[in-house]
């Protein structure tokens, strides 16, 4: 067998391998990897809050694309998370000053006060959070639409969801400050919005998705979404000895240890509030 024939055979083997690899990848395209951990921090790059419809039920999950930063690491492949598994982080990079104009009142902050925004365009160092009903077939729901309703909010401030038009004017869909708690989205949508928070801290948002079936009846789903809004760098792992969580191990931590030396069971502050309701500083 001459050299040219051997070369042609080798090229054929490579082509066959390439085609088989393409087939294997296609099988995993729809959902990618399923996250099996307890909790993770979503720090940057593109992800989508997705609503799907499977086996007669609405379902909600978060889809992060390969390249997304989770827990400080780059995701190697697309990964789906149950909403409660993920904490979406808005660091100080998300800080803006609320613009002038009454259009911006639903953000819940005053003019030139700090507002934390995960923006509708990609911004380095922040999650680029989309919203998608892309995988739901048309013709199943009345008017091909889904209603998304904010059922509960626990956190130190207000939450708002809006889009900017081409000239930067906000179009609000949800605003806890303005009492605007529901919005309608079309089936087949994949869009990015601005996610606004009026104060730093931990937020829990409970969203309900509902849709009326053309065949009668309705479908619904309820999910918890977690956000961490921080004005200091996020520490992904606890610092041993940092009792007060300020990023330093110093005499303040030592005082806390001294004050609690000998205690054997945690005590709960008398004024704690565990109810799923909005709180403000």
């Amino acid at each position, binding site marked *: 067998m001459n050299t040219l024939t*051997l070369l042609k055979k080798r090229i054929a083997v490579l082509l066959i391998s390439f085609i088989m690899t393409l087939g294997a990848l296609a099988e995993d395209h729809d959902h990618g990897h399923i996250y099996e951990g307890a909790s993770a921090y979503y720090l940057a790059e593109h992800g989508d809050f997705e609503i799907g419809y499977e086996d007669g039920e609405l379902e909600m999950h978060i889809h992060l694309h390969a390249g997304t930063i989770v827990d400080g690491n780059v995701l190697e492949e697309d990964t789906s998370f149950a909403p409660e598994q993920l904490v979406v982080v808005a660091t100080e990079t998300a800080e*803006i000053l609320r613009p002038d104009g009454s259009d911006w009142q639903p953000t819940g902050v005053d003019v030139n006060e700090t507002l934390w925004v*995960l923006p509708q*365009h*990609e911004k380095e160092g922040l999650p680029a959070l989309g919203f998608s009903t892309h995988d739901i077939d048309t013709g199943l729901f009345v008017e091909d639409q889904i209603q998304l309703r904010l059922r509960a909010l626990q956190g130190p401030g207000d939450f708002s969801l809006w889009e*900017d038009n*081409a000239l930067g004017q906000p179009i609000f869909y949800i605003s806890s400050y303005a009492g605007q708690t529901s919005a309608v989205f079309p089936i087949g949508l994949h869009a990015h919005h601005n996610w*606004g928070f009026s104060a730093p801290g931990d937020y829990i948002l409970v969203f309900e998705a509902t849709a009326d079936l053309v065949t009668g009846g309705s479908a619904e789903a309820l999910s918890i979404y977690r956000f961490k809004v921080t004005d200091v760098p996020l520490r992904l792992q606890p610092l041993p000895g940092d009792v007060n969580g300020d990023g330093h191990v110093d005499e303040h931590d030592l005082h806390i240890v001294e004050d609690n030396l000998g205690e054997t069971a945690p005590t709960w502050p008398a004024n704690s509030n565990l109810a799923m309701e909005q709180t403000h500083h």
Partner: protein
Amino acid sequence: MVPKQISLVFLLAWCPALWAQGHCARVFTDVTFRFAIETPVPDGPNAPMALDLYHTDLDLSFRPSGWEVVVSRDGVVTGATGLDLLPVDALLVGNPASRWVLSSIPPTFDFIGARPGEPFWILPQNAGTGALPLGVAAERADRGRLCAWNPGDPRGADTEDLWFEMRLLQVRGPADANFAMWQTAGGSAPVVFVSTHEGGISADDVFYLSAGSHVHMNWGFTQLGFYEIDFRIATVLHCEEWLTADWVPLGGPFYNGDCQVDFRDFAHLAAQWLNIPAIDDPHDPEDNQALLLLVDQWLECGYPGCH
């Protein structure tokens, strides 16, 4: 000559020790996108397809066969197959819903080049406005083939990543027309990527997109009519060690090194083989014909010029 060339082919195919080390090379292609802004769309068998209303992306990727830049429109209904068109076959439409008229232009949007009281058109960043929502995507890019690099652009591209560069080369459109690309930014000032109103076409008229990403932006036009807009799409490709025919370490100037095994490489190989000046321009019809003949000879009887 024949034994030497057979040895060359043998080494290329079977001797990994002599293959080039992997390296990164910048590759680019020029592409023209066509827009029809509130203008009757041409008809006829060779007319481009008008794209309006439905989510559409300019999709950038580099495949094993080379650049693949297409205009990709989603299926009209969910679950329906989308549509990929070569840019020459696609006409992106600005319908009346994309028209704006403002009594005064906000100062932060002066870059559009719009005039108070006069219409201008925007294909918007957000969907649901009744106008064509046009994005740019690099979701099909094979990340494993790309090299990380840092464009150093403060508009969101100043870190190491697998970047695609989309640089404005030329705008051909109605007289006195301006073209702009920008994103609105959640309460912050708009991020402007392209503005022909500000200083004409300059080195600042560029947009970067990382592999795997998909973004939408606003596309502004200040006159109705047809536009042809030329972009240079570039990325940095990792040349695999096995891509031997893009690197020949056996002397002579036929290292091409652009990560593509194509006629340019064969042109050098054939010239060395036949001891003739390099056939340098595969895009020249005569050179191209000569190369095709040499390839035919090589496959038929083992070496170029064999009959």
